[in-house]
């Protein structure tokens, strides 16, 4: 999961607290002791990470399954 997982629609969301549109930034995904770096939509100010439905139920679910069976 090294790729960029931010779609243009994701970047239409704003961080409510910081009142800034999200931008693509680095984030870390951790599961079962494995760390994965990815480029995700994040609030450039506070770092709050946005996960879309497509990503959660697609690629993330797939990787979760692989890591669980490892």
């Amino acid at each position, binding site marked *: 999961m090294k790729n960029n997982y931010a779609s243009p629609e994701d970047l*239409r*969301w*704003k961080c409510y607290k910081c009142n800034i549109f999200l931008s693509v930034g680095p984030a870390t995904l951790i599961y079962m002791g494995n760390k994965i770096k990815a480029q995700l939509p994040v609030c450039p100010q506070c770092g709050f990470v946005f*996960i879309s439905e497509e990503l959660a139920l697609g690629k993330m679910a797939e990787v*979760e399954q*692989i890591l669980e069976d*490892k």
Partner: protein
Amino acid sequence: MDQKELRLIESKCIQEEPPECTAACPIHIDVRTFIANVARGKWEEAWKILRKTMPFPGILGRICDAPCKEYCKRKGAGQAIEIGMLEQACVKTQAPKQRIIPLPKKEKCIAIAVSKLSGLTAAWDLSRKGYEVTIFEAGGELGENLLSMPDEMLPHDLVREELGILFSLGVEAVLNSSVDDEKFLSDLLNRFDALYVGPDDGGLSSNFLERENVFSGGFSHYKAKSPVWQAAEGRWAATSIDRYLQKVSQTAGREKDGPFPTRLYTNIDNVAFATAVKPLDDESGYTPQEAMQEAGRCLHCECLECVKACSYLEKFGSYPRKYSREIYNNSSIVMGPRQANKLVNSCSLCGLCEAICPENFAMQTLCLEARRDMVQKGKMPVSAHEFALLDMQFSNSDRFAMAQHETGHESSAYVFFPGCQLCASSPDKVKNVYAHLRETLSGGVGLMLGCCNAPAFWAGEEELFEKQFSIFSGKWADLGRPQIILACSTCYKIFKENLNKANIVSLWSILDETGLPRDCTVIKSDVPLALHDPCTTRYESALQNNVRNLLQKIDQPFLELTAKREYAECCGYGGLMQNANPDLAKTVIKRLAGKSSADYVTYCAVCRDNLAGAEKRTVHILDLIFNKDGESVPAARKRPGWSQRQENRLRLKHDLLSDLWAKDETNRKDNDGIVLNISSEVWQILEDRRILVTDLEEVIRHAETSGQKFFNPDTRHFKTSLKLYNTTFWLEYTTSDNGFTIYNAYSHRMVVSGKEK
């Protein structure tokens, strides 16, 4: 499980045992594959199958007396397959080209003083193994007794051609030899390392025959005249000679040299009757077309009884023998993907395979052991069972669990334990039943709410199960160990295995013995209902009888499914299949729903709800007996969703405590005024994704107090997330004066963190 245990388990699955024909064949030709190729007109392939085991297929294929035919299972549905005639039809087609590559030359030479098919077969086998072979023939040409057969039956040119293969392998023939003369044979032993003499050589002294390098063998009676038995005799002699010269055991692993009884089971109950194809011309046998037609009658014998009956076993594309090997390998993996996790976790542990299997192969034992092993090693995927274990935790928490003597009683002769899922599905029926029991039984009927901990048992969580079960036992001991009345057959099974059997009784047995409620209006259906036995009652015939008695007592006509009693099928809840493999569970429940077109009646709340969830009209027997509310069509009642199931339990405890024990339990922490508006589409999403409303409430509560959320100026929707247990929930919503409107929800298990600034 070690290798030895694995082999013991594997050996119980008989799918790979040979079919009757192969087992009965003295040289064990793969008849089933041969016939399958004939049926498809694949003559070259059929030829190759014969060649694999049959010496001189051009000859033996024409004169084989097919003793296998007598054992053919087709006999039970018409007539045995004409295997001999199929062999003839095959070897009359053009033989595919072949190159025989013998093993490297061995510096040992063997004399064969038998010119019949047995001697020729020994020469055939030994020359391929690299031995120098010399045949001593009494007559003037090799294979004289084959050449004495009529040319139409066995063309002489063909015999010479097939025997020519021996010469191409370096076999020598010495003609006009005195093979009956012991002096002549004794002299051979000076030049040869081993000697094979024929069975009919009555003139030889036992002294001579007992020499360690002299091999003989043979049959009296008819077998001496049977071509395939002659070939077999030659083959065994060749094996003995080879083993003697290699200095290895004469006997080890040779139990199946000759015909043996096979353990393979083949069910012919549903096979259509069909007699053998008659050749148009009796003299010349089958034409290729006739042979193909006859071969088409072959049953292709195999067992697969359990696979035919179980969608789970079918789904993974193989059968228990293979599965046990996969599961064994899975648990032995140190690094790398464990590919059989899904296989291990998808079994409903219902035990139908064991009930069906002629050898009682128990897939459920294998899967449960593997789960326990995975849990112990910390290798169990969290997602496989978490939702069910959290639900169990809910049931055992103060929000649902309780234990009380009957009001006005200091002790209890009985305690009613309705089980978590009946309370989740039909809380009102639980109230009705409890009222009836209090009315009918004396000595005090206490009440215990909670879970029997079957989810922990099924998940292989032994420690958790022991812990929770002892908590339950403690509360039960505090009530004075009254007899437990059980409404759920899963509870019944778990309690029976973990408590003294005298301590439990099923609700159905109580109702059958003490009678039905006096004031109840039984709403029954005039058309017969199909009775579904829950899989956990598989061996509880007394309990199954109680239910049948009850249906008769209320005059409810019913019919039996084929999958009844011992052969009851699981609804997909068992073994947490529904959690670990929701798609498979859908297939399973559809299969069960399709057993009869009639509406169903059952006596398990989960079976009832799962059937209802699959659009199958189903009533719980309590819907019929305790119908005080005038519900008109209980069969159409929808399956309560996951959130509703928790809400029902929560409310049931609250209602019972306030109605019967005058306790006001208002400490429901989620009563802080959060109102959610959820459309039916979104409800479906929540159901499919197993997201509980209580979880949504918590996510919203967190977002609204912390302000941590996203906002979309285009749609004016909010989105937020919160990690609860091992799961992060995402929620898309809007706020208004009427509460929160939910548009979407999803979850993931990975933990996400961004760069803190």
